[in-house]
């Protein structure tokens, strides 16, 4: 028998899979970005929702993936396919280097330090370090994916590529949740003293969360760069990080449907209400406050108790 979460996931995947049949190209573009942003939101959720690290600089890892693809493709002529592996690995490596000295910081201190990392990353982009990043204008003219002579340049192609990426992300999330590593993150999150007394190395599992989160965000960044054929610094600024942070908390930390709903509410709804252009972020801000007051744990909070069925004997 399928669990409720699996049924919901299946329905969601079917709807998203059929979406290109219904949408015109403008809506398809929004749909594509929605998929990419949900992937980033999931990766943020691994760090924030699961491992419980107050991380408000996730756009930096997202941007690292995007810039890796852009730089390798435009400056060095790599094919898009060849840039995928570095677009995942570089954010992972950077996360090891920059996060490990600050991983021990508590709560709000980590939050501010990660904002700092995001800002430093942005400044490296804007100042065109080593002449690679294109400064404030970013990098243009990124190629499309070419495999065996086929060019995947249409909006529908972009959409399904992002769709597959989301599928892979969900697969990883599911595997993570049902492993020692996913559980350890929750233990660290809920009570770090108890967790370490159970033999859990807090540092290791927080870093593990950051590394996986950074890698997935990097993959999403690569997709984002190809989708828009351009990358520029302000797409990866702190405000963007704040958006990913908020998506997770508004939707529901560590909850798969929650994060999807969060992305929808925080990204797609503002697109739908573009007509109310001027007032929409005002309403949006109000909605954030009201939402937190009414549902402080998110729209769709996580439900624990995901254990093998042979252990579920009780009725209580």
């Amino acid at each position, binding site marked *: 028998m399928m669990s409720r979460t699996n049924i919901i996931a299946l329905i969601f995947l079917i709807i998203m899979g*059929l979406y290109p*049949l*219904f*949408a*015109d*190209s*403008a809506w398809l*573009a929004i749909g594509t970005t929605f998929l990419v942003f949900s992937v980033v939101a999931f990766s943020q959720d691994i760090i924030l929702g699961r491992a419980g690290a107050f991380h408000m600089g996730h756009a930096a890892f997202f941007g690292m993936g995007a810039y890796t693809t852009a730089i390798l493709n435009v400056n060095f002529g790599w094919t898009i396919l060849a840039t995928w592996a570095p677009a995942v690995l570089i954010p992972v490596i950077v996360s090891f280097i920059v996060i490990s000295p600050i991983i021990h910081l508590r709560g709000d201190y980590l939050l501010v330090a990660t904002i700092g990392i995001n800002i430093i990353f942005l400044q490296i982009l*804007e*100042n*065109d370090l080593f002449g690679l990043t*294109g*400064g*404030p*204008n*970013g990098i*243009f*003219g990124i190629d499309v994916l070419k495999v065996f002579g086929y060019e995947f*340049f249409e*909006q529908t192609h972009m959409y399904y590529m992002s769709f597959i990426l989301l599928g892979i992300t969900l697969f990883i999330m599911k595997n993570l949740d049902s492993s020692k590593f996913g559980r350890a993150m929750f233990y660290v999150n809920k009570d770090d003293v108890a967790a370490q007394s159970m033999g859990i190395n807090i540092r290791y599992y927080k870093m593990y969360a950051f590394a996986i989160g950074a890698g997935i965000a990097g993959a999403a960044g690569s997709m984002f760069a190809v989708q*828009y*054929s*351009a*990358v*520029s610094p*302000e*797409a990866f600024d702190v405000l963007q990080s704040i958006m990913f942070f908020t998506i997770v908390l508004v939707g529901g930390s560590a909850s798969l449907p929650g994060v999807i709903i969060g992305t929808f509410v925080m990204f797609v709804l503002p697109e739908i209400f573009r007509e109310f252009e001027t007032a929409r972020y005002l309403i949006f801000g109000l909605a954030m406050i009201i939402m937190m007051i009414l549902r402080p744990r998110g729209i769709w909070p996580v439900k624990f108790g995901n254990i093998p069925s042979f252990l579920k004997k009780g009725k209580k």
Partner: protein
Amino acid sequence: MRILTKVATLVALSVFLVTAGSAVDVIKIGVQAPITGKYANEGQSIDNGVRLVIDQINADGGLLGKQLEVVTCDDEGKAQKAAICARKLVNEKVLAVIGSYTSGATEAAQTTYYRNKTLQTSDGTSDSLTKHKYWTFFRNSFQNSAQATFTANYFVKEKGYKKIVVISDYSSYAVGLADSVTKAIENEGGKVIYQGKIKSGTQNFTAVLTKIKSMNPDAIYFSGYYTDGGLIRAQQLQLGIKADFIGGDSNDNPDFMKLAGKSAEGTYMINFPTPDFLPYDAAKKFMKDYNKKYGKDPASVWALMNVDGLSAIVHAVRETKSLDTKTISNYLHKLKDFPGITGPVSFREDGERINTKFNVYQVQADNSYKIVNK
């Protein structure tokens, strides 16, 4: 499952019919400009100017018997937003895009328009805008290098500056202009004693200016935008630096005077002739119509440049009786002396506008301009 497929096909079909139906009657013209953000007043002027001209064309019976419709996308002067706008306007199936104001936002969108065979005309002045030689792109202003040559000549030959400081922000446009000006000054035999950069939007430029003060320059040239230029000028005088202040083309905006306050007086601007100084009747008529419709003047000459880009495209459509962008482009590449409101419009093979001239203006006590070059 079968029902779902049916519904999907039905919806897809109706979407197709709706879009196909709407595409026939009108010709869409895109505007990609910074409607909000730092350069909002320039962006809004461009949008207003385009809408004014299009209203006039529609009132006269439209283009090839069809009405024109404007689709505006706000790029906030940011590259990534510009890339999103490009996708959006292409999806809207516009014939041509007017804009954007900044070179960066223009360049970020260029490739998408080129790939989708959409015409684009912009006032961006970065040399790099025409380096790809995209057949879809037409610059309606001038290249930085042309301005740089003029500036250097004025500094060294006419004013005889000995110690020149060149400042830019970090945008590729301003850095490009600053580099060209520095190079041109040295070619003319002048000396740039310091080339500095400021971070746009930081408001506090005293740190760099204090350093400059110790060098005792006789001219400070700023290649960036008016939002920073006005403040640099004000802070320069506060710190008691006596040097002349000369702003590049992007300082030419009423907000420069407001930001600089009393310090604006005596500032020099180097730009293409500003709207008030344009000798052409068409320009005077445009300014009058614009003022009548919007109750104020356009922010600067850039809106007029973009309007000329639009007019040239409209002219080409009329002449070729075609909506095929390649045909229009071929025609435009050979366009000679089309009477625009900023003077005759002619394009080179790479989409570069030719025959542009510059003036040096000095800001007077009442914030009006006076031409001071020979």
